[in-house]
């Protein structure tokens, strides 16, 4: 039994499909088998990281936090370009914001 969590709006889930298929062919396991459970997952480390300050509390790390977030966003943009290169799509396509709940 294997459970796979994916997000249709994120490129890593898409990139995972081809090697996963190869892996299951070697196993061998059918991706559509009841032994393989597919579930949506919208969370990521980025969505759990952050401040735990209570409202009104001063944040001594506000500048550091903002600068680190900026660095992280720049790196994510570059990584997005790399993933688009592997998938053979344009970076603008990869940057499209899609609501994964639909």
């Amino acid at each position, binding site marked *: 039994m294997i459970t796979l969590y994916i997000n249709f709006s994120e490129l890593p889930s898409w*990139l995972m499909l081809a*090697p996963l298929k190869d892996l299951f062919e070697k196993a061998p396991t059918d991706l559509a088998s009841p032994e393989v459970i597919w579930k949506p997952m919208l*969370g990521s*480390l980025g969505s*759990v*990281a*952050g*401040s*735990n300050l209570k409202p009104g509390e001063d944040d001594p*790390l506000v500048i*550091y*936090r903002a*600068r*680190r977030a*900026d*660095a*992280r966003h*720049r*790196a994510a943009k*570059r990584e997005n370009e*790399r993933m688009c*290169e*592997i998938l053979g799509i344009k970076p603008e396509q990869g940057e499209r914001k899609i609501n994964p709940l639909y």
Partner: protein
Amino acid sequence: MSARLEVYIDFKSPYAFIAKDATYQLEQDFGLEIDWYPLTLNIGSYLGTAKKDDSGQVTESSRSPRQWLAVKYAYKDARRYAELRGLTLKGTQKIWDSSLSAIGLLWAKRHGRVCLKHYIDDTYDRFWKRALDIEDSQVIVAQLQVSGCDAEGFEEYLAGEGRDDHDRLQEEILDRGYYGVPTYVIDGESYFGRQHLPRVRWHLEGKTGPLPDVAYDSILHQSSPAS
């Protein structure tokens, strides 16, 4: 002329620890000398803070349940690969201020590559066995001496030039867009995380062939575990 590879590490990062040997392997495989830099993370700023006692009980915590899940998963994942390499990786009991050990790294760089390698190896090894208090300047002095570095003048450096250099470097690192460890930089292109090692190799090989996807480097898995 071989490529220049910068690598950014933090001694309190389990991921940087388990990436170390595969990173050193790049020096051998590509005939280059890695330029090591300390990137001192402020983990509490994005994953909250916590302390545990010797029995493993949490005595202080500012973490949300989701942050605890993320931290516990990170250690579980890192331990899998540490075990694969025969490394001891004991979870830390608090979030350490690793800046003294980072300044020690800057000092060790001045004293040659042999000393630097010993310092990096031994500091990582002992810290993750919970055998090193990296917030104690005397411990860092001893680490430098054990590593074959001349530690004469280190304490003055630590309180002055070294601290200034370290703090300035942390600002510059954020400006460059690096925010986690290990980060690899070649020709201004940065790769964060050891899952990028196949891409680092591809870059060092002259970017021949298609860009590889992320994957954990299996180069070292073929050799015997670290002693």
